[in-house]
């Protein structure tokens, strides 16, 4: 039993460290398994000589910082202005379903919405614009990466919103707010000065994860980002998949550079934190009350609901496209419904769904077993905190180190072990990303379980195994299934790990949808993107329905929400 917490830590941290080593050595020309055994600075030299590299780095850094800052600002302002009100409850309702939507699907939906031939343009054309054919604007793939940033912001808002909501119950914020408002502070100012610093302290690591993800994102960048040149991570993947093996050394150097870019982003973020804290102190010293905050309220409201609606409508559009017959440009709706894509491409869609489900179910089954075993082991060891300190570090490692930075190296390691492109390797690498989210999802309900039930069960003569299997696990059934559904959604949304470790031989709904995004077949993209959403949705549906059915006659286990 005592081995499980360290095992979990090792499964998380070893792939990251091995992967980092696996790019560091090749970045200095050392990759003996492919015949490169002369240490040199050549990979770095050729990397730095790549045309447009500085612009790619700048794009990554700028979009990442902007995406993280904007999504956090929207969440902070929205909570400040609307916590506990009607709009807040509406937004919260949207939250979980949107969170389970893969990044790639959300980005594709956004592209369907805002492209020059997209739905918004169709709605207002030709009446307002006079366009009879799609205008030649570069909205999607714009050179400055603005649409890509917007896509990231829209997708990160639900994540940070949920993180902030999870942090709130641990803060006695109502009293703090009363005090602030009794001093004459406006609603938003009271929140930002008094409550937000406490929330931020608790969601800081998730914010860093958002930042690291955004500076190194690949799938969203392929779908929405600039192409000439693309952001750094996208270029690295192109080099990695190039038949010319020597480009791998250059890609490895690029991966190290990507790690440095992420570190720089975090450094800049820390400076930004200080700057904002200083501004806050200044405002407090001056005694500014910010009682008139209507403009900010309107902004927070508009930004939050634009983001939520953009994703929701984008997703609906993809469903419509997947069954669209002829659909000429300025028409708001297709002329007729056609299931040609679904019938004609059924075999390949089915194969992708099956692969996604297989990888996801295996990763979740193994993962949930490991997580429960680790939590229970800590419980039996009477540990005060269900997560050991090394485990917390290990949980954040795969989220804070950019995926590109260690997946290249991990691919080399799997190649060396003869495991490349195998299901084993894929499930292992998915576990690295699935485990943290399953732990985050399960640890709070696990902690909240009343330990006196165990005391009573022990006093009734039952041992630790009996208490775990017959009392604790059934009582936490709903939470365990929710964690499993979260894990499955994370697995189904993985693009880069599936692409690189699967060696292109495993086509999942996500890899297919991203691969298709560069082509123009909107009906087929719509079909794959729809399946991308449907799979995690089924997972969450089961997680909600099964406990309700199994425990339909046990009112004490119903969740009141």
């Amino acid at each position, binding site marked *: 039993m005592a081995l499980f917490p360290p095992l979990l830590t090792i499964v998380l941290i070893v792939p990251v460290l091995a992967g980092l080593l696996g790019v560091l050595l090749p970045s200095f020309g050392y990759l003996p398994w492919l015949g490169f055994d002369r240490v040199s600075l050549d990979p770095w030299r050729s990397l730095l000589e790549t045309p447009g590299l500085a612009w790619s780095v700048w794009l990554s850094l700028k979009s990442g910082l902007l995406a993280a800052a904007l999504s956090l600002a929207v969440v902070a302002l929205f909570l400040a202005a609307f916590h506990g009100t009607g709009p807040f409850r509406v937004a919260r309702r949207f939250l979980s379903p949107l969170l389970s939507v893969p990044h790639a699907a959300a980005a594709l939906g956004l592209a369907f919405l805002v492209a020059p031939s997209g739905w918004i343009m169709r709605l207002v054309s030709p009446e307002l614009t006079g366009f009879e054919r799609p205008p030649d604007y570069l909205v999607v793939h714009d050179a400055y990466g603005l649409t890509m940033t917007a896509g990231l912001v829209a997708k990160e808002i639900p994540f940070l919103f949920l993180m902030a909501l999870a942090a709130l119950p641990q803060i006695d914020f109502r009293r703090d707010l009363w005090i602030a408002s009794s001093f004459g502070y406006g609603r938003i100012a009271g929140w930002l000065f008094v409550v937000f610093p406490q929330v931020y302290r608790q969601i800081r690591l998730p914010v860093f994860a958002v930042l690291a993800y955004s500076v190194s994102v690949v799938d969203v960048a392929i779908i929405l980002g600039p192409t000439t040149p693309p952001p750094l991570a996208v270029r690295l993947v192109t080099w990695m998949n190039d038949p010319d093996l020597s480009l791998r050394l250059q890609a490895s150097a690029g991966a190290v550079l990507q790690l440095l870019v992420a570190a720089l982003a975090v450094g800049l973020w820390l400076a930004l934190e200080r700057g904002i804290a200083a501004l806050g102190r200044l405002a407090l010293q001056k005694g500014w009350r910010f009682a008139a905050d209507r403009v900010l309220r309107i902004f927070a409201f508009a930004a939050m609901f634009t983001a939520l609606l953009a994703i929701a409508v984008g997703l609906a559009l993809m469903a419509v496209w997947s069954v669209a017959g002829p659909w000429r440009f300025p028409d708001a709706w297709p002329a007729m419904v056609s299931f040609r894509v679904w019938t004609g491409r059924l075999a390949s869609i089915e194969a992708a769904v099956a692969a996604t489900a297989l990888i996801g179910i295996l990763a979740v089954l193994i993962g949930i077993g490991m997580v429960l075993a680790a939590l229970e082991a800590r419980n039996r060891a*009477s540990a005060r905190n269900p997560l050991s300190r090394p485990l917390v570090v290990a949980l954040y490692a795969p989220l804070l180190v950019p995926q590109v930075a260690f997946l290249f190296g991990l691919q080399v390691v799997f190649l060396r072990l003869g495991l490349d492109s195998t299901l084993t390797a894929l499930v292992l690498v998915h576990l690295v990303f699935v485990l943290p989210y399953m732990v985050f999802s399960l640890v709070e309900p696990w902690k909240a379980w009343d330990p006196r039930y165990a*005391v009573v069960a022990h006093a*009734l003569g039952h041992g630790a195994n009996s208490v775990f299997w017959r009392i604790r696990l059934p009582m936490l059934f709903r939470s365990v299934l929710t964690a499993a559904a979260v894990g499955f959604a994370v697995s189904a949304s993985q693009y880069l790990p599936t692409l690189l470790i699967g060696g292109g031989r495993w086509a999942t709904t996500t890899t297919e949808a991203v691969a298709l995004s560069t082509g123009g077949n909107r009906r087929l993209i719509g079909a794959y993107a729809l399946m991308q959403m449907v799979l995690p949705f089924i997972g969450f549906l089961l997680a909600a329905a099964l406990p309700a059915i199994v425990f339909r006659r046990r009112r004490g286990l119903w969740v009141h929400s």
Partner: protein
Amino acid sequence: MGPFMTRMCEPTTTRTDAAARGLVLDTVSISLGETCLVDLTCTVTPGDVVTIVGESGSGKSTLLACIGGFLDPIFTASGRILLNGTDITRVPARERRLGLMFQDDLLFPHLSVRGNLLFAIPADVARRRDRVAIAEAALEDVGLAGFGSRDPATLSGGQRSRVALMRTLLSKPRALLLDEPFSKLDPERRGRIRSLVFAKARREELPVLLVTHDESDAKAAGGPILSL
């Protein structure tokens, strides 16, 4: 003793009759760091109730946790706990066979009323039919015949208390440890459940240790009252 007072646990010279039947606490002391919370020697004979009163935070519940074998490792305990002449100080919780009741009934919400009772019946009653018969008889005993398949959440507070009591008794405990088990009941039910518990304990000749801050509980128990 209030929660913020500091007192060292001093060795007491009182000797107890270790061979006595019932529950014997032999110079049991519990400390948190340097602070002594409990320092107690007493004997609870079978069928009797010893009541321990004290303010909240005085360590009453900690004492019960110590006797039951669930003491949080941040506390340090010394002394001996004897049950019918056997030292159980180092025996694991599930082998002590002490019946515990808290202010909340803590019926397992995922099991039916019968399921809760079946969970408590010792494994040496092997046949399922016998186990069910024992559970049904226990329900009948407290006026809850036919409640076996009910969801515990649909029972009233008094009914839940009775189920919790029978669940404890079915596990064949050798003593009862009661941690304010009546405090969440309304005054009318409180008296009835209390008499029921004490009557059952007397009939089964169980030593009972009751901790409470309620005077009427202490008075109703009728036994010695110790103050922490």
